[in-house]
């Protein structure tokens, strides 16, 4: 049986309730939400409302209607960047941003959006002094990844949020890696926008993400279309969530996401974080004892993602050896985050990322470390 250690890409397995909820919605509900008055359509709408409510509880958002369902964190980020930034605007990003941020901004740069990068140390620590300096004059937007998807480095999101609030600049927090693992309070931190995926730490199925936009921020929608509301008007409704949600939503995915969030609320986010960080520490300690291993250890760890390289061995080769030799699934290469790899010193080859999830055990980590020991016994001359 495969040992899955790629939870930073997507969590696997899911809580049993997630599978059951998806199946229930597909088999028993079936209808499209917000488009009809019959019982099944009302039930479908209730599925969405229930999911919004649970996410609002998890993230400390008073008004669930400010939560928008998207396809994934990438779409959520695209909505904000393309709906908020205009030619001539200036945006600050960290040096650990994912291509979900870097690539839309590269396109926006072609129409005159000015992108400035705040440096991070090789251990992933954001240079807050430089960040403070770059806040004057105030940029139009600050984008910060809450934890680096390469090595789990936690960014000082609350502090950055406070500085942004003081400067009157909205902060887009990319919580793709931390949602369901780290605590953050959207209203209390006065976050401008929050983007995250539903299939990683939130334990839902793939194909669903979420976006929060503070009510006072007028972000133009990325798409327009049918919402089931104010259908007599040609213009997209301005009220949320309909302003950003059009077309039939991924109801089974959203239902599964709600089940995942329920699981997190029941287990306790602190217990989940504690377990994942404990496994990451075990990984780091075990890897450190091996010859030729270089760890990209974060200054402050926020998730279970551990990145490393073995001298003279391409990370892709090592990943394949773990797969072919031991049926262990890890992610190798640049993890869609070349900027982060440049900051961490692992560009262009990238690294091997081992990302345990809540359902991994200490035995799994020992199994992985034994595989590494076995491989490195044969390595070199």
């Amino acid at each position, binding site marked *: 049986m495969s040992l899955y250690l790629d939870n930073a890409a997507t969590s696997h397995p899911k809580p049993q309730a997630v599978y059951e909820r998806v199946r229930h919605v597909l088999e028993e509900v079936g209808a499209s939400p917000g488009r009809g008055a019959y019982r099944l359509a009302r039930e479908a709408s209730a599925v969405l409302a229930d999911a919004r409510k649970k996410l609002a509880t998890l993230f400390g958002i008073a008004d669930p209607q400010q939560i928008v369902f998207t396809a994934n964190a990438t779409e959520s980020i695209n909505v904000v960047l393309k709906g908020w930034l205009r030619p001539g605007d200036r945006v600050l990003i960290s040096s650990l941003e994912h291509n979900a941020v870097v690539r839309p901004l590269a396109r926006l740069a072609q129409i005159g959006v000015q992108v400035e990068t705040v440096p991070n140390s090789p251990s992933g620590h954001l240079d807050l002094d430089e960040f403070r300096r770059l806040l004057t004059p105030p940029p139009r937007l600050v984008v910060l990844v809450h934890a680096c998807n390469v090595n789990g480095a936690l960014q000082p999101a609350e502090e950055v949020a406070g500085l942004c609030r003081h400067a009157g600049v909205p902060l887009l927090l990319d919580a793709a890696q931390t949602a369901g693992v780290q605590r953050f309070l959207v209203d209390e931190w006065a976050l401008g926008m929050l983007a995250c995926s539903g299939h990683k730490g939130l334990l839902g199925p793939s194909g669903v993400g979420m976006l929060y936009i503070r009510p006072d921020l007028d972000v133009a929608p990325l798409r327009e279309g049918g919402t089931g509301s104010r259908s007599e008007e040609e213009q997209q409704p301005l009220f949320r969530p309909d302003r950003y949600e059009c077309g039939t939503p991924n109801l089974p995915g959203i239902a599964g996401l709600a089940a995942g969030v329920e699981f997190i609320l029941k287990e306790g986010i602190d217990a989940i974080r504690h377990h994942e960080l404990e496994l990451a520490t075990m990984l780091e300690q075990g890897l450190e004892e091996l010859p030729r291993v270089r760890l990209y250890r974060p200054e402050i760890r926020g998730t279970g993602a551990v990145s490393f390289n073995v001298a003279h061995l391409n990370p*892709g080769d090592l990943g394949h*050896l773990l797969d072919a030799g031991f049926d262990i699934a890890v992610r190798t290469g640049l993890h869609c985050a070349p900027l982060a790899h440049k900051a961490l010193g692992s560009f262009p080859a*990238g690294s091997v990322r081992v990302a345990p999830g809540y359902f991994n055990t200490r035995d799994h980590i020992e199994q992985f470390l034994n595989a590494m020991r076995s491989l490195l016994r*044969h390595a070199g*001359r």
Partner: protein
Amino acid sequence: MGDFERVMISVADEKEMMLPTDKTVSLEALICDASGHGNLRHQYLVKEVPVTIFVNDRELVTLLCTGHHLDELAVGFLRAEGFLESRKDLESLRIDEDTGAVRIASSLDASLVEHLWQKRTITSGCGKGTVFYHAIDALLATPVSSDVHITPAQVWERMQDLHRLSQTYRDTHGVHNTALATPEQILLFRDDIGRHNAVDMIIGHAFLHDLRLDDKALITTGRLTSEILIKAAKVGLPVIISRNTATSLAVELAAALNVTLIGYVRNGKSTVYSGLDRVACSVSGEG
């Protein structure tokens, strides 16, 4: 087409065969020219025999070779492929010439190597790709560290030495010649129908005699391909020299593995593809 010759092997009586060395046989063959005229002549042919290597009673591979120095061939092959790592791994070696079998007992647990052996590497497009195509090679081959230096004159002299030693080639034109050398002299000569086999014999000899390789050069008449490069790098040979040319992948691998690759050594000239720092040669420009 006037000088075109076609060799047709006739049925030869084994008793009539000439046996000038243990590596060749002779037979009578029809030498034809394009006009349709032919003469029967004795020809030397290099032997080709199948040899099967067994490790701990498990059949591993059958090599087609000339059939000599089978101990070196088997041990060198196993060393280069990762089935043997040090002399202490080798518990026994038995050659059965009648059945063409080499049986080796090894104390090394090579189950992982065997499991991964010759499996094609599969990597994603996310990040700089690998230069290896077999996963196990990526694990076993590491950059070669060496202080050895060689001059172009020495390269040319050693290539001439190699040709002087190649009696079987002169008889048959059917083998590849390979030698292990210091910059000053050839230490060991082997030939075989397979250029890989000849290299394996060199590696096997060094393994069996605890000969260090990191201060020596491998000289061959074979093309410089990725397989030869990987094989040499896995045992720490810093310099490879050939009468023939190199392939693109061999040069890429040589750069990655810090191997000096010198090819097309003919008429006093040579082409250094990688590892220029080990070749004492002044460079006057490009183009």
